[in-house]
Structure formats: C-alpha cells, structure tokens
C-alpha cells in the first residue's frame, strides 16, 4: 500500500513490484504525466468489483476522488466464440450465440439465424415470425429487468434488485416452457423455430401482460421521483448526439441522446412493421435519460407482445424448404427424399452459397450485427458478431470525463453492460 509520498515516485516505487512497473511503462502514453510522478493515483476498479457487471476492469487515474483518466480493460470473458463457429455447421452455431449476451439469448439467436436466412434466402412462416417477435420482446423486458435491478442496486435502491428479479422469473418460466431452458434457449432455428409453442404458452404470456403494467408503475414511483436517484443521475455521464454517433453508440444509449434510431422501426425485420409502437427518446444524453428510455421501452415491448399475441396466425413454424429445415418425423416412414434430406442435414448440414452477408437487429442493448462469410461449404468461413456493448463500452471514458468515482458507477450502469456481449 502507498502510505506517504515525498519526492517523485518515492512511495510509489517502493510499493510497486517490478511487474507493476512494467505495467506503468505500457500505459504511460495514455495517462497524464502526473501519474508517473505519483501525484495522481492509479487504481484498479475490477475485475472483481460488484458494480462492474461481471469482469470489467477499469484502470482509473484519480486526483482525490476526481476521475482524470479511465482505461477500460476487457477480455476476461473472451471465449473465442467466433473461432469456434468456424468449425461448426451453420445450425450448430446457434447455441454459441446464446452465450454472448446471456441476458437476452433470444435476440442473439434471432440476429444469427436471420443472417443465415438472408444468405440462404429462406422465407420464414408468419407464425414463426410473430412468435420470434413475442419471445425477443419478452427477452428485452427480462434483460431490462436485470439492468434496472443492478443499476438500482448500485445507486442504493436495493429493493429494486429483488423486485426486478422476481419479474424476470416469470419471463424465464415462459422460456423454460417453450425451449426447455431458462437462459440458454437456442429456440430459434434457421427457417423458423425448433417446435411450436405448447398450449400453456398463451395463457402464461397473457397473465404476464396483465401483471406487468402495475409493476412498471411501481418501479417508476420508486425511482422516477426519488430525489436521491435524480441527484445521482441527472446531468451525469452526458454524451452529445454527434459524439454518440462518432463513437458508434446504438440502442437506448444512443436514443438517450435524442437520436431517433431503432432498427425495428427504420428497417423492420421479422414483421415488426405489423405492430404499432413508439420509440422513446431522451434529450440530454445523461444517465437519467438513458434510464427513462429503457423504462418507456418496457411499455412498448408489452404493447408489441400484446398485439402479436392477438394477431398470432396459425400454420407451420418452420419453413418447408427441405434444404435447410429437417422433414417432419412421420415423412421419414414413407418418403425416400425425406430420408435423404434428414441424413444430409444431420451429417454435414446444408451448404450455403459463397458470399457474405451482414444482418443487424435491435437487441436490448443496440445494434446486434452478424457478419457471415461463406466459401460455399457446410461451415462458415468466418462469423463475426458486431455486439452493441463492445462499442458502447468504448465510449465510457468519454461519458465519464470529469466525473467522480461514485458517478462512474452510475454511468457504467446506464450503458447496460454484459461482459459476455463485449468479449464474445
């Protein structure tokens, strides 16, 4: 520990082991000269810190309690998903996508399968499209619940955490019902869904729809007019619209700065244009506006789910293109073609045409893009995921300029980090 500092580096060099000295050399062009003389303090926040949402490490240069420099270090959760995907058939990549943004796995599933569908030019039946919308919107609500709970907790509203996780439990039960899994759902398939939803699905979602609005109102009354919460979030972590665009922010983090950009609205996919909803916008680009955007998005998501459930068409949930979708089990008994298709799909998968596609969807955190480069074989040559929080986190030093350590906690909460999504 550094106890006293007399001359330049005096206390510091005694306390530093040689490795830490090397560390300082590596970053000396990124911190102010004052850090080298020991005038300001270099402090690690994380990777094991309760407010960093996992394993984010921030190297902070502090002048007292004021932030001078903030250097995010990521990669602690890097799992090489993109590399692993190169060794798998297109269908087998789906379970990997769950494990990136583990708070909204269905959004990742959707982004990936839609990119492959674009490459393969597969049409998805309307029933499957509607069910995809219902489930991704539910997962948006579930993801926002975790954000609301954790960022509330960090700002001292501890009961928020307990309430939000209670509500998320309803959603996870619905996922369990349809996919057999609470979190790593892998429910969407290229060309549709794994199977149709069970009978209990619609009543369960309806029950959730009647139950949830009262709860959201409760949260709003807990936080919106809470003077402590307002004090800690208003005017904190401001990012102007132009700067937000230069730093490639997307999702609520961008809309909090007043930029009207939601891919569900601008470039509707999976029948989003069949539903009416609004895109909540902020104005000041501070933590409070980002918070308001997400809370209002909960209402819009509920609206979308309700409309989709009302209009839910019947019919198949899987394309009948046998090149990508397995034949129904009963056909195997009498159709030779079905047996061949089944065999082909289960041994080598389907072959995608050579070429490259990029498809983006609006995940709870922003633009989730999937880039696929195909060489014409049954496995992708390259899969790259453009994950929203990777770009959003990069702007953290910009947002936290000139703040204090306690404000930084609020800013981290407001960009809704999921480190699995950052590191992939």
């Amino acid at each position, binding site marked *: 520990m550094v106890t006293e500092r007399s001359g330049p580096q005096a206390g510091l060099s005694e306390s530093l082991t040689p490795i830490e000295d090397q560390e300082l050399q*590596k*970053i000396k*062009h*990124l911190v102010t000269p004052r850090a080298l003389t020991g005038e300001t303090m270099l402090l690690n926040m994380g990777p094991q810190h309760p407010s960093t949402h996992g394993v984010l490490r921030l190297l902070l240069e502090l002048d007292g309690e004021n932030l001078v420099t903030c250097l995010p270090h*990521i*990669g602690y959760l*890097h799992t*090489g998903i*993109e*590399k*692993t995907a*190169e*060794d798998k058939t297109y269908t087998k990549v789906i379970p990997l996508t769950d494990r990136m943004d583990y708070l909204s796995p269905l959004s990742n599933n959707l982004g990936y399968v839609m990119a492959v569908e*674009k*490459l393969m*030019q597969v049409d998805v039946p309307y029933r499957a499209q509607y069910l995809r919308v219902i489930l991704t919107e539910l997962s948006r609500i579930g993801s926002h619940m975790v954000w609301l709970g954790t960022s509330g907790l960090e700002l001292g509203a501890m009961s928020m955490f307990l309430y939000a996780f209670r509500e998320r439990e309803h959603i996870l039960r619905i996922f369990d019902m349809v996919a057999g899994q609470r979190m790593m759902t892998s429910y969407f398939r290229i060309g549709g869904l794994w199977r149709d939803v069970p009978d209990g699905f619609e009543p369960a979602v309806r029950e959730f729809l009647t139950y949830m609005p009262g709860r959201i109102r409760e949260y709003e009354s807990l936080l919106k007019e809470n003077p402590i919460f307002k004090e800690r979030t208003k005017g904190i972590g401001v990012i102007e*619209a132009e700067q937000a*665009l*230069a*730093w*490639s922010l*997307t999702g609520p983090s961008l809309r909090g700065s007043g*930029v*009207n*950009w939601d*891919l569900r*609205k*601008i*470039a*509707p996919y999976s029948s989003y*244009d069949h539903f009416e909803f609004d895109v909540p916008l902020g104005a000041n680009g501070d933590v409070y506006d980002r918070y308001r955007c997400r809370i209002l998005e909960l209402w819009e998501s509920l609206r979308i789910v309700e409309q989709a459930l009302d209009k839910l068409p019947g019919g198949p949930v899987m394309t009948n293109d046998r090149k990508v979708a397995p034949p129904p089990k009963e056909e195997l008994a009498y159709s030779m073609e079905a047996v061949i298709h089944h065999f082909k799909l289960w041994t080598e998968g389907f072959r995608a045409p050579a*070429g*490259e*596609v*990029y498809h*983006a969807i609006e995940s709870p955190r922003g*633009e989730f*893009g999937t*880039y696929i*480069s195909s060489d014409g074989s049954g496995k992708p*040559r*390259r899969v*790259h995921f*453009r994950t929203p929080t*990777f*770009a959003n986190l*990069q*702007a953290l030093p910009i947002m936290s300029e000139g703040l204090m350590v306690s404000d930084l906690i609020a800013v981290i909460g407001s960009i809704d980090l999921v480190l699995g999504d950052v*590191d992939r």
Partner: protein
Amino acid sequence: MSDLSLQMDAFSHNVVAKVTEAFPDDILAVGYFRDELTIVVGQDNLPDVCTFLRDEPELRFNVLTDLSAVDMLPEHPRFEVNVQLLALRRDAQPGQGTRRVRLKVRLEEADARMPTLTGVWPSSAWYERETRELFGIEFDQLADARPLLLPEDWEGTPPMRRDVPVLVEEVAFSFNRERIDRGKSYAKE
C-alpha cells in the same frame, strides 16, 4: 459491372458513382450480393476515401458500425478487412431501410498492414486493436495498440488465423494435468 448496376438500388448506385468519380484509381472492384453493397478499396488512400464517404453531403456515412477481418486462406491475397458503414439519418422515416456500405481492403500476408481509421471515426480504435491481435494485421498510426481481448503475455500465431486449429491445447483431466502443467510457460523450473 453493368449487370450489377441493374440490380442495385438507387442509393447504392449513387454511392458507387460518387466514390468512383472522386477516387478513380482507388476503387478496385464493386460487389452487390443479397442487396448489400461492397466496395473494394486500395489501402493507400483509404482514410481519404473514408473521409469522403463521411463528409459528402449526399452520402454521409457517419457511423462505423463494425470493422473485422477474414482470413481467406488458401486464397491470395490472404486477408480481407471489412469496414461496415452506416448512413444514420436522424430524420429517417419508419420502414425506409438502412443505408449501408461495406468497404473491403485486401491485404497480402507479407504486407498485412493498413492505415488506421481512428482519425475518421474514433470508434474504430477497439475494432482495430481486436483485429490486430486476433489476425496479426497492423494498423499504422494506431495510437493505442495494446492487446484488447487476449492476455498480455499471449505469444504465438494470432489465434483467429485459419492455420491455427480450434483446439490447440490438450484438454486437462486429473490423470494428465500435472504433465500438461509442467509444459506451461508459467511452470516453475
């Protein structure tokens, strides 16, 4: 080229026309696949081409959404770096679609370096750091070139290259753990 321009939508058409007019020598090829425009750009004037795409009033590609590389092994040139650009209009109408373009830079293995785009879009920095460490592609004048995702003591071939197998390490079980541990760089003695 003429076949392609028949398929293209008006905006992509305009992008190609404008950029070829301004940089006739730097635009090497144009592709259009699944309604996505790809422009292959030479690396020498890349920052200028990007600045043009960002500032030209009719194009205004103001957001860099993504930058990543593809290892094309065994093809030549070996690497392709893809830059995904988005023209984000704040007055965009519902349902009008997104305007995107993919810039592609082809790099030989022996000379796998290209200029940084951080001067045009600051958000390019982390994408370039990621591409640098995972593919071994150098970005000239990238201010902060520390490793991003990999451990700081990572050694060896950049892991995303195709000649690195997916599984490079023997899986440790209780019966072989000690032997594997002895071979590690962190093993003492």
